């Protein structure tokens, strides 16, 4: 047996150096922990820096929208960008384009490699006329109220003023049917909007349609996530019918388009949110529990919104828009019928027949006005309650409740065999109960006295 000479007899060789090695191992472990903690701390710091820079970029994007508010007609004819540097070293780029009867603005704020895009819809700031409950521009007829009609707010009419009438032998129920001032004018203001914006939008939309590269020849049903659909280019054209059943679309960083030569049906649990235009050459139908928010619908024939749909976008048709069943319109919903003439083959205009609450602006415009009492109308059915404004260059048939203002050429309702011109029966108008600034189309240049109004504004998801 070999023995080390210095080890005493009976003793084994000691295990030297173990403690130091153990300490070194512990130090190595602590160093790893420190490095992990440092990495986490740096990561947290970086996130905070990004958050502050993103907040700064967000303020810049909002500034772009504010500059867009200063625009006044003539409206932008093409989608051109306008960029400028800011005093804090950032950059803002904006672009505006017609979006139905209003303007759509995109603003990109960039600061220290953080970019925020904000989309906004700009409409007219409501002029003073909307402070009144009722404005009737035709000076030839008095405004006649009957039944249970009540009016709260000012009334602007022609020189014949307002009076109560007997309907089918019945006097008006409430003698004090009006609370407010009556302003009788020789020439009350007539409702008008700047249709140049709407017509420019239609031309641009048709150009986008002609330039659309992604074409699907047959009828298509869009069910799943939309991610793949709009990856190549921002527009899709279906050369037949299009069915959206469960599609989930949510984008606000640019405009997107879905064109259909046939019918478009949006149903199921489809959610269409953001700056997308859905165009049909025939009819668009919304049904079931679909949700459409901020999108624009345009149909050459008609738009029908029914079921339990929630709609808060813009619907435009030259013929007819119908809201029925339990469909719910929410601010800032806007319905626009731009009728080519004042005669209809069948009923034309906007028809509200839903039992759910409605928050909307209803606009009926007419291109050529030749008859005394044009056919296109806004019909607010019995038991319908609408918060918002009604603007009609034709007639309004108000049978329900309006919490807001109505600006029309004439009222009308039909009780066979008689047409009652400029009559209100069992209608209720209450201006003070309008609690929000309504969305309005761009007004003609000579009536613009205020900045454009931001109807809605939202940041695009990163």
């Amino acid at each position, binding site marked *: 047996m070999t023995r080390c000479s210095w080890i005493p007899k009976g003793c084994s060789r000691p295990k030297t150096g173990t403690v*130091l090695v153990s300490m070194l191992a512990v130090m190595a472990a602590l160093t790893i922990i420190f490095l992990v*903690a440092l990495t986490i701390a740096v990561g947290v710091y970086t996130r*905070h*820096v990004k958050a502050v820079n993103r907040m*700064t970029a967000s303020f810049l994007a909002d500034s772009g929208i*504010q500059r867009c508010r200063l625009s006044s007609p003539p409206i932008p004819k093409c989608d051109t960008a306008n960029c400028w540097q800011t*005093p804090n070293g950032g950059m803002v780029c904006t672009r505006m384009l017609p979006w139905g009867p209003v303007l759509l603005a995109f603003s990109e704020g960039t600061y220290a490699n953080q970019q925020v895009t904000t989309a906004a819809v700009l409409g007219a700031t409501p002029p003073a006329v909307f402070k009144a409950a009722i404005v009737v521009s035709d000076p030839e007829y008095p405004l006649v109220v009957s039944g249970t009609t009540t009016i709260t707010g000012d009334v602007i009419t022609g020189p014949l003023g307002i009076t109560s009438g007997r309907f089918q032998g019945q006097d008006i129920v409430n003698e004090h049917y009006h609370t407010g001032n009556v302003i009788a004018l020789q020439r009350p203001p007539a409702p008008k909007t700047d249709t140049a914006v709407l017509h420019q939008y239609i031309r641009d939309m048709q150009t986008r349609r002609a330039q659309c590269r992604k074409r699907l020849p047959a009828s298509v049903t869009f069910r799943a996530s939309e991610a793949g659909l709009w990856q190549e280019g921002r527009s899709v054209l279906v050369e037949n019918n299009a069915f959206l059943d469960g599609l989930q679309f949510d984008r606000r960083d640019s405009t997107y388009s879905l064109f259909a030569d046939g019918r478009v049906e949006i149903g199921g649990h489809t959610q269409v949110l953001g700056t997308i235009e859905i165009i049909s050459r025939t009819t668009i139908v919304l049904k079931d529990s679909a949700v459409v928010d901020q999108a624009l619908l345009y149909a050459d024939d008609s738009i029908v919104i029914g079921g339990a749909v929630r709609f808060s976008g813009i619907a435009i048709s030259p013929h007819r828009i119908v809201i029925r069943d339990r469909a719910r319109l929410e601010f800032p919903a806007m319905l626009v019928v731009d009728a080519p003439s004042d005669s209809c083959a069948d009923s034309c205009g906007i028809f509200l027949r839903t039992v759910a609450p409605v928050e909307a602006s209803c606009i009926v415009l007419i291109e050529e006005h030749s008859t005394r009492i044009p056919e296109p109308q806004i019909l607010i059915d019995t038991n319908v309650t609408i918060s918002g404004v009604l603007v009609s260059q034709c007639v309004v048939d108000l049978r329900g409740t309006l919490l807001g203002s109505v600006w029309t050429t004439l009222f009308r309702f039909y009780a066979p065999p008689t047409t009652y011109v400029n009559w209100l029966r069992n209608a209720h108008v209450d201006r003070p109960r309008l609690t929000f600034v309504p969305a309005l189309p761009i007004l003609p240049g000579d009536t613009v006295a*205020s*900045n454009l109004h931001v109807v809605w504004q939202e940041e695009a998801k990163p």
Partner: protein
Amino acid sequence: MKSVKGAESGFTILEVLVAATVFLVGLSLLISLLNTTLGRLGTDDLEAAGALAKSAILTASVGTDAAAVDTVLVCSGKKYHLHRTITTNGRLVGVMVTVQRHKQTRLLVNAYAETAIETH
């Protein structure tokens, strides 16, 4: 030959003391390094400065009389220097806000916002 069972090995007190000292020195160095790094990063400062800047911009948008505001604010026990300048260009109001730790030069926030003057 008989095998001899050896006695249990041990560590001298000196070895233990040296090892413990090395451990404590190393640990304290690591902790102080971590604290210094976190302090220099100033994550809390960024959060506070962001909130102050946002408040200053939103307040200016509502409407204030002073064209420039230079003030020291206290947030979570720390002092921050906030400088706000308001400029008017036609129908636009521009608000420039910088925030830094009191008596320090590094800018924590350098924000700018514009708002349109309402016309009636």
